[in-house]
């Protein structure tokens, strides 16, 4: 999934976190953004790669993109939607 060219409004790095803190960090960071704001999440490992985008979608937010970076981590772009919390 190629990411669109957008400048994120906030960035978090959850490569050092484990479940459930991976999504706790993501959820709080999204909540702190205005509706429509874009969050960049750096993550690592199978578990957050599966769960973080899915949990964000479950709350009504939009997954804009997911890219694998050269160092083996992933860059996830999320847009905060009004419905999400």
């Amino acid at each position, binding site marked *: 999934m190629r990411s669109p060219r957008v400048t994120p409004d906030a960035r978090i790095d959850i490569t050092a976190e484990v479940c*459930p803190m991976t999504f*706790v960090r993501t*959820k709080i960071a999204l909540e*702190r953004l205005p509706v429509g704001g874009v969050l960049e999440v750096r993550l690592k490992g199978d578990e957050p790669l599966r769960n973080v985008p899915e949990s964000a979608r479950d*709350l009504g937010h939009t997954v804009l993109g997911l890219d694998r970076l050269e160092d083996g981590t992933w860059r996830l772009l999320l847009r905060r939607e009004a419905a999400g919390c």
Partner: protein
Amino acid sequence: MLTEPQIQRYARQLLLRDLGEKGQESLGAVRVHLALGGSLAGAAAAYLRAGGTEVERASTSPGPWASTPPLVGSPPARRLDVLAAPAAPGRSGVVVGAAAGAHVLWSIAEEGCHACLDLARRDLAPPEVRGPAGIQLGTLLAFLVQRRALGLGSPLEGIQMSREGVLSTVSAPDCIHRPPAVPGSVLAALLHHLAAALPDEGCAVLVGREDGVRLVPMENAQAAHHARDPEAFPRTARTAFSLDPRAWLTVLREADQAGERVLAIAHSHPEGPPGFSDEDRRWAAPDGQPLLPGVAHLVVAFEGGRPRSARWAVWAEGDFRESDCPLPAEHE
């Protein structure tokens, strides 16, 4: 904004839908006054404190809640009362009571109708639970208090726990103590209909249920009555209104079929005066008792062909209580 220790402590519940950072702050902005005893109160206090809410207990016996230090820096601003029936919260909170072997919890918001709560809790006895059943009821109680703290749910909501521990929701009675909430579009349609009747008085009925209000425009039957028999009906449609019985019957039948009820009868005063007149009062309560209990009245006063004010009249505590009904902004 939550601090790092708060995020760590509340991580699991921060994941919940409807909670999050703002929700956690709402839980912390509440101080619960718990005027209950026993395992019920112990369980409720433990859950509430663990969830981040301050609890003050009427009794000072130690319990699991005592070990949880408060994490919120600023003093909680909002008070929620938890009481045993037949007492009731002055502003907002939960009342726990027993009826026919089951336990019932009523939760009311600041904006909830206390007259409705009075009716709902009238036949409740103080709760009588011990041991595991008390703990179950206590956790349910904590859940209701947290919903209230988070601003979730309706302003007055009830839940019942049977002797076997089965939970079911209890419906609040249809509130007849306050004017119904009428959407601006319905109000605009009402004004339009009443304006079309000028210079005569116009009339209409508002019917609905919880999920919506509908306008039923009515014809003012007074003109026909006066034309047919001016001696029996000396007032013309300029200064009086009446509903045609057949049309009224149709309104009732259709509302009944749709699961709706009559919320209000609206009429106009073509050239003022604003508000519910003595004549209106005699019409609505001929012998000092409302002819249509639970039905509100809405009077729209016009001046120079334009609506100038709208006033509700709702029967409560032995008289009609008047209140303003804000008019929708004009679209021209």
